[in-house]
């Protein structure tokens, strides 16, 4: 199967008062299109940093990321933004909805950014699909946590991205709502053949993915899908 995301010997170092600090250390893997991958590990293992590098939100100190055949390190910030606009979707732990926009408008946002001709129609249909037809004109402040995350998921899938990155998507939700949200994400993932990269603490959740990558202190310590 074709690989959609390649991490090639990724390292990330940051400077701190105590000197240089290694957050990621020589991490490599390939991810096949349409797969669902969980990245697990304790706090401070480097999960979020890895996610940021894979999505082109940040650049590695060494190594590079190939997203659908494009080397992200060769692009400037705007170039990476255009790649994200075309191929990437996000779901965040803290939802990140624009407070000034209502539910429908939040879903329209990436479509409008990509210059989509019928943003409102597409957004309406997907908002309905995640079960928020009655809440379209509500603002984030008027929505519950679970509803906010549904809006975020609708927003992420609206542009039919090649890769969907989810950073602890259930971290701010109670367990029942979290389970519902994950079910919705897996359903949409299967229906749209999107590659899902999920960062989580939740091992039960990780078990539902095709493959689990485990990080510890910046190193890749296990990979359930590694050849051999």
């Amino acid at each position, binding site marked *: 199967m074709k690989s959609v995301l390649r991490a090639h010997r990724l390292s990330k170092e940051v400077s701190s008062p105590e000197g240089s600090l290694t957050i990621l250390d020589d991490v490599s893997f390939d991810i096949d299109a349409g797969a669902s991958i969980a990245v697990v590990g304790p706090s401070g293992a480097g999960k979020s940093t890895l996610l940021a590098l894979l999505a082109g939100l940040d650049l590695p100190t060494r190594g590079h990321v190939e997203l659908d055949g494009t080397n992200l390190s060769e692009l400037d910030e*705007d170039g990476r933004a255009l790649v994200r606009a075309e191929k990437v979707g996000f779901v965040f732990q803290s939802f990140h909805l624009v407070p000034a926009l209502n539910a429908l408008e939040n879903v329209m*946002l990436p479509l*409008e950014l990509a210059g989509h001709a019928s943003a409102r129609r597409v957004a309406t249909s997907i908002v309905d699909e995640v079960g928020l037809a009655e809440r379209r004109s509500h603002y984030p402040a008027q929505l519950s946590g679970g509803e906010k995350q549904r809006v975020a998921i609708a927003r992420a899938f609206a542009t039919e991205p090649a890769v969907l990155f989810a950073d602890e998507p259930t971290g701010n939700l109670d367990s029942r709502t979290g389970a519902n949200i994950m079910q919705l994400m897996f359903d949409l993932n299967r229906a749209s053949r999107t590659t899902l990269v999920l960062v989580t603490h939740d091992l039960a959740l990780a078990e539902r993915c095709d493959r689990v990558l485990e990080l510890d202190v910046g190193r890749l310590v296990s990979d359930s899908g590694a050849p051999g």
Partner: protein
Amino acid sequence: MKAILFALRSFGRELRSGEMIVLLAAVSLAVAALTAVGFLTDRIGKAVARQANEVLAADLRLRSQAPVPDEWRELAAAHALETADTMSFPSVVFHGDDNALSSILAVTDNYPLRGAVRTAGAMFGEQRAVDGIPARGEAWADGALLARIGADVGDVLEVGELRLRVAAVLTYRPDQSIGFASLAPTLIMNRDEVAASGLVGEGSRVRYALLVAGDEADVAAFNAAVADQLPDEIRVRSQEESSERAYSAADRAQRFLSLTAVIALLLSAVAIAMSARRFAQRRMDTVALMKSLGATQRFVISVSLVQLLILGILGAAIGSVVGFAAEELIARILADLLAGDLPDAGLRPVILGCGSALVLLVGFALPSMIELRNTPPLRVLRYDEMPPAPSRVLVGALSLAAVAALLYRSVGDPRMLVIMIGGIIVIAGALYLAGRGLVALLGRARSGVGVAWRYGLANVSRRGRDSAVQVVAFGLGITVLLLLTLVRTDLLEGWRATLDDKAPNHFLINIQPHERDAVAGLFTQNDLEAPAFTPLVRARMLAINGESVKERSYPNRDGEWLANREANLSWAAALSDSNEIVDGAWWPAGYSGTPLASIEEEAASNAGLTIGDVLTFFVAGREVEAEIASIRKINWDSFQPNFFIVLSPGALDGMPTTFISSMRIEADKQPLLIDLMRRHPAVSVIDLGAILEQVRGIIDKASLAVQAVFVFTLAAGIAVLFAAVQSTIDERRFESAMLRALGARRRTVFAGVMTEFAALGAAAGVLASAGASVLAALVATRLFELPYTFNPLIWFAGVGAGILVVCISGFFAARGAVNAVPVDVLRGLPT
């Protein structure tokens, strides 16, 4: 294009959600304040100028020794101007056996074209403004004239062959001047009856005047049209030349008004800067999200710029409407006090107000909006990732340029601009340093206080730079508020004091040398100080450096007029208190050598005279030569007898001399003057009270205008304080919720917040008081040329106002944050 469409779409959404309201409010308020201030200063400036015009009773006066030919009257009519005619001539007026010399003013229907004549029903009675002119067979006579001839209202006077009934006591006419032409008390009569009086014939000393008034542009066009064609014997006087004193007052009024406009401008600038900063901060998350969703830097910046533009336009529109409405309201309130109609200001203030607000928006909001493009998209994962702060040099340069450009427009005076900007920079720098100092100090003090205080003080010191910035904002706000209240009052009082308390209110002229002792005796018998007598000798200038004054060329027409007219000379051994030598030197005490002259600064420059020039005068058949030894500046506000040309002692010995004197006589001693006029009928008494009242009227209008305008600057100042507290409101909501979740009582949290505000307010107040004192001293001494007296009240008011205003606006602004239900805040934080 995509960005513009997106910006337009999302602008509406963001406006609806209230995100942009604070900045929009700041911009609207700025436009409203600047527009209203502009309207008022423009209109009231015109009203003040119009009052100064009253000195002519017209906008323009054509004066001649012969009747003014009809062609000028027709030309004025062709320019859509109103006209009136006056004749003035001296004549003896009889009442029974008593008689006195009077200056007869014969007027036509429209007199006066500017200002109003005031009369009273009886001697020393209450005066009121009158419409119209005396009917045929009637006259309005000056009280001094009536006193001299023992007449009163209702009596019949003989003026030439006419018998005129005194219909009222003349107390004020706009064109009464202290010029020596109108020495004798006035009698106003109807011009239609002059011919029947038989007083005007061949060789009579009659001055004819054509008064002209109307729309400013029409008057200017008429003035330009007549300037070159008028024969020499007709002289034009326009408002600028009409009265030095009224104009120096009008000029100061304009300075006060533009000072107020400047303050409104500065406060608006601070309010816009602070709310723009908050707006940019709140947008940061949205921008990071948009970038993570694939928006490019160009897209982000285009959206920001378009939205800023729409915001500017919307703010300008709202502000103009509010400003216009407010101005209409204030003008209506002022209309009564300003006695009649205020001239229309036109659309200029709206354009200037909008333009100024847009310049402020660009200068203060643009840098942070542009820097938003560098927000790292990583911020969606790490909340502490921030865009690099906008270049301080860029921000500083842009905002300073914006303020300087606008200041220069309203001030129009480079010196005032430098003082203003210098003052602002020094105070802002001092406030910032003091803010940092306070922060460090409080950090140490907090271990010794209770929990609420510790929380409040910890907040001040934890916010470090932010606290210092707030101290700067509050400090600047309070500085200008202090300037506007206490300092304005101090300045106005100081200014009025130079006119009121010691200023003479009566002039005595035409005192013969032998009468001096008797006149002085009258005063001492009435327990008044004997007045000083200043000599006056009538002369004509013949030559300057041997060249005939008729052939010589002059820098301007005023100079030519000065050299050719009959001159009033004086001599003095010592320099008058109200004079100051600006060039050369006054003659030494006891000097009695060859005649020397001292000439007034402006007269010297008009006539092209300098130190060393030799003036030749013709006095009573003899020639006197005097060399110019010094050039003087005269403080006309002093109301002392002053002369353009003063000679050294001995130069005019033996020449026919009369004396003049000025003194202050309170109302209860006024009967002394009637006594004096009866005993010395040749002596003329001129009541300066009416003229002082005219000057005071101008000052009152000016201060009234300043107070009206103050309402807007106050609103702008409070907006600044609100913007400052608002900029920390999100943080405060969260902190307060957290503290309460940890078990703090609401009262404790509130006490902590108030401690923080009180500490900030006190620091800002102390520094603002210092700043306002320094600025006040500079403004008073450098701009208004008034002595500055230190006012300790500034310090009490400054610190008190600092604590009070910051605490009160902080209370209202932070109340919501403290009262919010903790669980909502803590749970609702992520969106």
